[in-house]
């Protein structure tokens, strides 16, 4: 295998991966945290793009379970046999055309809404039932040793008898015609799906009474009936759980948003109702992005168990601080191994082996301007006494970072300090000499580096393991994307004749400037991705640009470094709720992962409950912000954001009806 292939070329492994390769690439690190996925009861697995929802849900698929069973090197990540006793069937709402039922929505035809819902439900039921029969058939085509522990009972004969029974059962109208074999049953179900697809195209205009009269009325019902038969006939063991997987639930919201004057939650309600029924035979598994699940009726814990991957992977003060680094490390090693970089993959810390240590503050400054005459370059505001300014420029010759902190100190103490406060011995400077001022310095290192970079018309450089993990912000896709871009830069550098003479291993850790180049490239790509969000991408991109550029200007202009944590904003909840447009755009940007939203305890109690928002770390290099989240964010009023929204093309003065069209995420009750 060539040593110059990029192990991260394909970012979205779930969709593009051959099932046989899945066990080698899947990281089991999260497995102990997701056991509810395998137990009875409904589960909603939420996560922004790239948190690995589809990869985790893939574990439930029959083909993947068989791939593990056939693998000699990898065992199924869930070892508890009782947890593995389930059968799963499902549908990916993005790829399997269920959403096309909306193509027959008609303006001013109220009867159509119910008709559409029924088409959607029956289409999904037919698809899932077909998937169930195919899954059992596939399992039974393997050795009994494979399928018996998974919850199948008495094998092929029981399955065939079940199919005949289903054909005679009035409970499953889809199969009322005689279906003596699984092949015939699957074929019949396929024909029914194709009939729907033709109907969605408008050819024929009418669905036909044969289908209309046999449409199933609630989501999952025919599967529940089929499971009852499968258990009665001994095909499924009595304790076997039936899991129904519905992935990419957010597609329903996006489809609904395309319908002008649409009934809100036209199709999402069908799933909400299915969860609410708490059908004992079925356990639903819903994969969704957070923004699509924000206003669902079902109650967490009563109707479903929520699994929030973003929260799980966020680096917290307490608890799972190491979960994401461990996941990243495992994913990294598996990718490298799959592409023949075994030597690195087998090291104790492969990320460290490839990217090395992160830069200490002085090193980061050195990278910004290795040959810079900092004494001349450092920007000192006019307010600073000329004698003090001269001392600061002296310090800057060898210690630009200390000099920059000196500027802030001077600005904070304009009337109190004099030139003697700035001795040339940096250890004697206030913030170095005084123990209680250590934090003053530590909290301002990032902003000092940012301002030095701005003085030198450069950007902050990022490299090394810690920087890469911090920039990933708990998102494994962002991490893989950074690796992809850095690897590209590295491969290009190996073409250089100077590097050809050495072994590729000798070029590790990857050169810092190549890492920085790759990180900037990844950041640009993620910035561009904002505009790809369905229906609101351009609006969100403009809003994020307004916010990112404002934060950068504020950080650079804050010469006294009074707001070292000013790379985010804080708003009082009641203030945000008073301006629905502001609330919605913040909620959308957070739900789609471009802003990180956290609870915030403000300094002033009267401000009331608040939240703070930061651009996702991967956008930090693009917007040229600081990466750390220390100290207080910028306190703003919701009305301060209105100009950003206006420049993003949101018409604040719109009537509620028009606003509904501009903001597809509006709740019906609010419009």
């Amino acid at each position: 295998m060539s040593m110059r292939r990029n192990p991260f070329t394909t970012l979205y492994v779930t969709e593009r991966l051959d099932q046989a390769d899945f066990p080698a690439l899947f990281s089991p690190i999260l497995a102990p945290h997701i056991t509810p996925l395998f137990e009875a009861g409904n589960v909603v697995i939420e996560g922004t793009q790239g948190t690995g929802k589809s990869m985790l849900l893939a574990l439930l698929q029959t083909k993947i379970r068989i791939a593990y069973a056939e693998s000699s090197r990898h065992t199924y990540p869930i070892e508890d046999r009782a947890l593995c006793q389930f059968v799963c069937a499902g549908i990916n709402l993005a790829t399997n055309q269920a959403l096309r039922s909306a193509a027959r929505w008609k303006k001013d035809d109220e009867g159509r809404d119910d008709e559409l819902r029924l088409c959607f439900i029956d289409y999904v039921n037919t698809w899932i039932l077909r998937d169930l029969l195919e899954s059992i058939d596939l399992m039974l085509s393997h050795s009994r040793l494979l399928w018996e522990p998974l919850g199948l009972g008495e094998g092929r004969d029981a399955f065939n008898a079940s199919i005949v029974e289903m054909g005679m059962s009035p409970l499953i109208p889809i199969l009322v015609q005689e279906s003596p074999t699984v092949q015939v049953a699957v074929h019949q179900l396929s024909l029914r799906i194709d009939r729907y697809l033709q109907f969605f195209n408008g050819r024929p205009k009418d669905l036909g009474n044969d289908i209309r009269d046999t449409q199933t009325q609630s989501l999952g019902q025919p599967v529940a009936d089929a499971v009852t038969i499968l258990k009665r006939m001994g095909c499924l063991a009595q304790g076997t759980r039936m899991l129904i997987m519905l992935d990419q639930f957010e597609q329903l919201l996006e489809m609904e948003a395309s319908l002008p004057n649409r009934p809100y939650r036209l199709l999402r309600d069908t799933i909400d109702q299915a969860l609410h029924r708490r059908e004992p035979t079925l356990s639903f598994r819903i994969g969704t992005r957070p923004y699509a699940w924000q206003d669902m009726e079902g109650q967490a814990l009563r109707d479903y168990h929520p699994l929030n991957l973003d929260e799980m992977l966020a680096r917290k003060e307490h608890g799972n601080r190491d979960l994401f680094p461990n996941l990243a490390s495992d994913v990294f090693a598996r990718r490298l191994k799959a592409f023949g970089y075994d030597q690195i993959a087998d090291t104790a810390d492969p990320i460290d082996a490839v990217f090395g240590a992160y830069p200490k503050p002085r090193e980061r400054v050195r990278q910004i301007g290795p040959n810079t005459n900092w004494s001349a370059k450092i920007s000192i505001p006019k307010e600073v006494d000329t004698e003090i300014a001269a001392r600061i420029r002296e310090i800057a010759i060898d210690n630009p970072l200390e000099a920059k902190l000196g500027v802030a100190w001077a600005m904070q103490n304009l009337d109190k300090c004099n030139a003697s406060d700035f001795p040339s011995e940096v250890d004697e400077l206030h913030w170095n000499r005084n123990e209680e001022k250590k934090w003053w310095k530590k909290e301002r290192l990032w902003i000092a580096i940012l301002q030095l970079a701005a003085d030198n018309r450069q950007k902050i450089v990022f490299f090394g393991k810690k920087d890469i993990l911090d920039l990933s912000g708990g998102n494994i896709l962002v991490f893989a994307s950074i690796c992809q871009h850095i690897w590209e830069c590295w491969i290009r550098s190996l073409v250089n004749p100077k590097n050809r003479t050495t072994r590729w291993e000798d070029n590790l850790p990857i050169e810092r400037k190549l890492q920085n180049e790759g990180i900037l490239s990844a950041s640009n790509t993620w910035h561009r991705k904002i505009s790809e969000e369905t229906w609101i991408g351009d609006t969100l991109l403009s809003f994020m640009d307004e916010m990112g550029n404002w934060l950068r200007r504020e950080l650079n202009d804050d010469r006294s470094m009074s707001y070292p944590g000013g790379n985010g904003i804080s708003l009082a909840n009641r203030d945000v709720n008073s301006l629905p447009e502001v609330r919605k755009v913040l909620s959308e940007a957070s739900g789609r992962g471009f802003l990180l939203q956290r609870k915030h305890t403000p300094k002033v109690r009267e401000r009331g409950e608040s939240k703070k928002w930061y651009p996702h770390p991967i956008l930090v290099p693009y917007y040229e912000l600081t990466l750390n989240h220390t100290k207080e964010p910028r306190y703003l009023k919701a009305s301060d954001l209105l100009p950003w929204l206006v420049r993003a093309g949101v018409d604040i003065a719109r009537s509620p009806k028009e606003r509904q069209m501009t903001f597809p995420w509006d709740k019906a009750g609010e419009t």
Partner: protein
Amino acid sequence: MTGEYRPAGPLNWIIDHLPNHSDWDLIGAISAEPRANEVVRLLFNRGKLHNSCFIDIEDQASEFQIATQDARKLHRNELQNLFGQSPNAIPMELFSEIDDLDDMFAKIDSNIGDRVMLDITSLPKRFFFYLVRKLRAAETVKNLIVTYTVPRSYGKTLHKNPGGWMPLPGFGSEVSSSKQPMLVIAVGYHHLKLLDLIRERTPKPIRLLMPFPSMPPGFSQNWEFIRYIHEQVEFSSQDIRRVDPFSVSLAFEHLRAQCSAHVGELLLAPFGPKPISLAMALYALAREDFGLPVSVGYTQPRAYSDLYSQGVQRGHDGKPIIHAYCVKLNGDLFYRWDTA
């Protein structure tokens, strides 16, 4: 390459060479684009216009809305001045679905005879793909010419907030097979969430039709489009085929050469110049006639900019450049599977 001649050329030239066809029924659009009325003006001034109807499409709300409505009003007034009476306009919403489009066609159908000119210049794909299907299939329409007017330039911002990949009305797949489809992308200026499709359907092979020569400075955006797709999915330079952006016949032939051997599902992504999109529509219909699965989709933006295009491209004679493509003459289809 087929030897079949498919008449196409400047609209004036086509009209001159169809002496037996005295006048035409025109289907066009009331649009914000300055180029929208060039075809109707030409036909009217040459005394070749019989009936006409214009689809008046309202986008979803956006910051462009007021300016777009003003520009549409201006162009509607132009038509009124030309005809001395209000133009026959059919109001529609951009996201009209198939049943509303059928209602629209019923109105159009009562206004057209056997000679129809469809001006796709300012018609969104959701509409013109549908109309090409209906007019091509209509037995009463014996002659069908599709026209396209070239703008002087395109705006910096073309549209706002595209949606996800969805089939164009009537052009969805009709088979539930989950096998890997083939994808052909007509390269344009904006990829508009095309990656979602690639990620979700994992098509293979992927081919790109690159307009060449492209209108400067558009070629750099075309290459940026390709670079971005390539960042996410592997394909070789051999998979990029250069196509004259105004030759429907050549684009049709390219599709034939690339796709006819692929009997599985074919996905067509018309993101490029309108004539290449027209070739995709005609190829999809020919393929459908032959019983092979095909789907055409798009990531429809919610609204188009009032500055989508500027002016009209003029030839050295000072006249607007209007391309005309004969799809059907005297009942004979020019873009068929058996010639493909």
